[in-house]
C-alpha cells in the first residue's frame, strides 16, 4: 500500500503535546511497522501560516493525509487502539 502520511499540529511543547507525540510514535513503531510511514510535526506558534492554511482550530490535531479518505483527530490521542480505528488504517499484521 501507499505511504501513510500523518501531520501533527501542536501548540508549543506542553505535556499534552508530549503525550500525543509519544502515543503516535508508539503506534507507528508497534503497529504500523510494516508500512512506509511519514510523520510531520508542525508547531502552530512558530508556523501560524500552516495552521491558517489547514484551518487548525484545536491542538493537538492529527491529520491523516493519505491513504484517503482524509481524517482529522483532535486531542492528545489517549490510547493506541482507539487511534487505529479512528485513523481507519488497515488491520495490523501480528506476525
Amino acid at each position, binding site marked *: 500500500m501507499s505511504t501513510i502520511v500523518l501531520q501533527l499540529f*501542536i501548540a508549543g511543547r506542553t505535556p499534552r503535546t508530549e503525550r500525543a507525540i509519544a502515543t503516535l510514535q508508539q503506534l507507528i513503531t508497534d503497529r504500523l511497522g510494516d508500512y512506509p510511514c511519514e510523520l510531520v510535526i508542525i508547531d*502552530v506558534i512558530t508556523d*501560524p501560516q500552516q495552521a*491558517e492554511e489547514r484551518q487548525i482550530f*484545536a491542538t493537538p490535531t492529527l491529520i491523516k493525509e493519505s491513504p484517503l479518505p482524509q481524517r482529522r483527530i483532535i*486531542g492528545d490521542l489517549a490510547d493506541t487502539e482507539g487511534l487505529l480505528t479512528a485513523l481507519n488504517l488497515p488491520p495490523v499484521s501480528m506476525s
Partner: protein
Amino acid sequence: MTVSTSTFPIAKLPTGITGFDHIANGGLPRGRTTLVSGTAGSAKTVFATQFLAAGIQQFNESGVFITFEESPDALRRNMVGFGWDIAAWEAQNKWAFVDVSPQPESEEIVRGAYDLGGLLSRITYAVARVGAVRVVLDSLGAIFARMENSQMIRSELLRIVAAMRRMGVTAILTAERTQEYGEIGRYGVEEFVTDDVVILRNPIEEEKRRRTIEILKFRGTSHQKGSFPFTVIPGEGVVVIPLSAIELKQRSSNLRMQSGNSDIDHMCGGGFFRDSVILVSGATGTGKTLMATTFLASGAAQGERVLLFAFEESRDQLFRNATGWGFDFEEYESTGQMRVICNYPESASLEDQLILMKKEIETFRPQRVAIDSLSALERVSTMKGFREFVIGLTSFIKHQEVVGLFTSTTPTLLGGTSITEAHISTITDSIILMRYVELFGEMRRGLTVLKMRGSAHDKEIREFMIDGHGLHIGKPFRTISGILSGQFIHTAPSEIERLGNLFKDDAGS
C-alpha cells in the same frame, strides 16, 4: 514624564456605528472584549461586521473577523448589500478572516484532551498580519455546539480574551440567547468571559417586530441606561436611535414665520416661531390639510424651501387640492423649492421612517416641514414605538432651524383627543385645535390656539369657514360652550348679557 496607564479612566473606541457611540458615551471600552448577545435574527452578525467595516471606512483601522458559523464566502456575499466590500478590504490587507466555520468535507474525531491553541495562534497571526485594531468573534454558540467540553471552551475563551487584551485590540464576541429576556447567553458562561455586555433584542410587540439595543454593563465606565430602538437598513447597516439621550438644548428663535393666513398669524400673536413645532389637531375634514398646504405655499411664495411628508393622500390628490385653493405646487416643485414625499405608513417600520425623514430633511434643508398626518403613523407601531418616534423627530426638527407643522386626526368627529396629542402635546411649542361645532342643527367649524409657547395669543374659540380661497377666521362662538369636549351647551344671548353684567360691577367700580 511617564504616567501609569492604569490610573487613566477607561478609554473608549468610537465604533462608527450610527447612534451607538452616543448611547455608549463614546464607544466600546478600548482594548477590551465586549459580548454582544441576542436571539436568532437579532442582527448580531451585522452589528459585528459593521464594527469592522466602520473601523476601516471611518478610522482607517484594520480588522480581523473570526467566523465560527458562516463561511467567509457567505459573509462576503451577505454584507455587500450594506455597501461593505470585504473582498476589496482583504486585498488591501485591511481585513482578515480566520475561518473556523465547519468544514463538511473533513471529518473530525475527538480522542483525548485538547485546547484551542491552534485558534489562538491563528488569531495572533492574523492580527499581526493586518495590524488589526478591531477583532470580531462570531459566534460563541457555534463553538459550543461543535465541541462537547464546555468547561474547556470556557477556560480557552478566557485565555483568548486575555491574549487579545495583551495585543491591545478592541473586540466583539457574539453569543446566542434563547429568549429575549432572561439569561444573557445560552451556555451560562458567556457573561463571565467579558466585562462588557451589549444585548440586541428583536421581540414581537402587538404583532410588530421592534429591534432594541441595550448596554447591560461596561465595567468601570459609563453608558446610557435602558434600551434604545435601532433598525437595520440596506446600504448602511445598524442605525441606533438614541432617543432618551437627546438633550434639550435646541435653539429657540424669536423669528416669526407667516402661517400663510393672516388671521391665524394674528391669533398666534404674529406668526409661528422658527425652530418650533406646531401641532394642528382636528377631526377628519376640518381643514388640517388645507392648513398645512397654506403654510407650505406661503413659505414657497417667499422663496423658502418647503418639504411635505404625506401619509394620507396621494401626490395627485394633494396637488389637485392645492390647485383648488390657488397654489401651484407643481410650479414650486419644478423650481426646486418644494419637495413632496408621499408614502403609506405601512411601507416601512417607524424606525426606518424616522431615518428616511431625517435624511430628507438633511439633504433638502428646508425652512418649513409639514407632516400630514402624524396620526396616520400611529397605526403601524406600538404605543411606545410611536412615542419614541415623535420625540425623536421633534427634537431633530428643532435642531434644524426649521418650523414644523404636524397634523393629527382625532378619532371622533366631535371633541376628543388623539393618542398623538397625548404624546406630543408637551413637546410641541404650539397647538391649534380645529373642531366641529354643532350649532342649532348645523355643523360649523371652530378653531382655537390652545398653546403658543413664548408668546401671547388669542384665547377665544373662533368660527372659521373654508371656501375656494382658503380658510377664513370669523367671530368667536359666544353662545356655546363645551366645544372642545364635544358636549355642547347653548346659552341664550340674554343669559350671557346677565353673566357679563355680574362681573361688570367689579370692573366698573
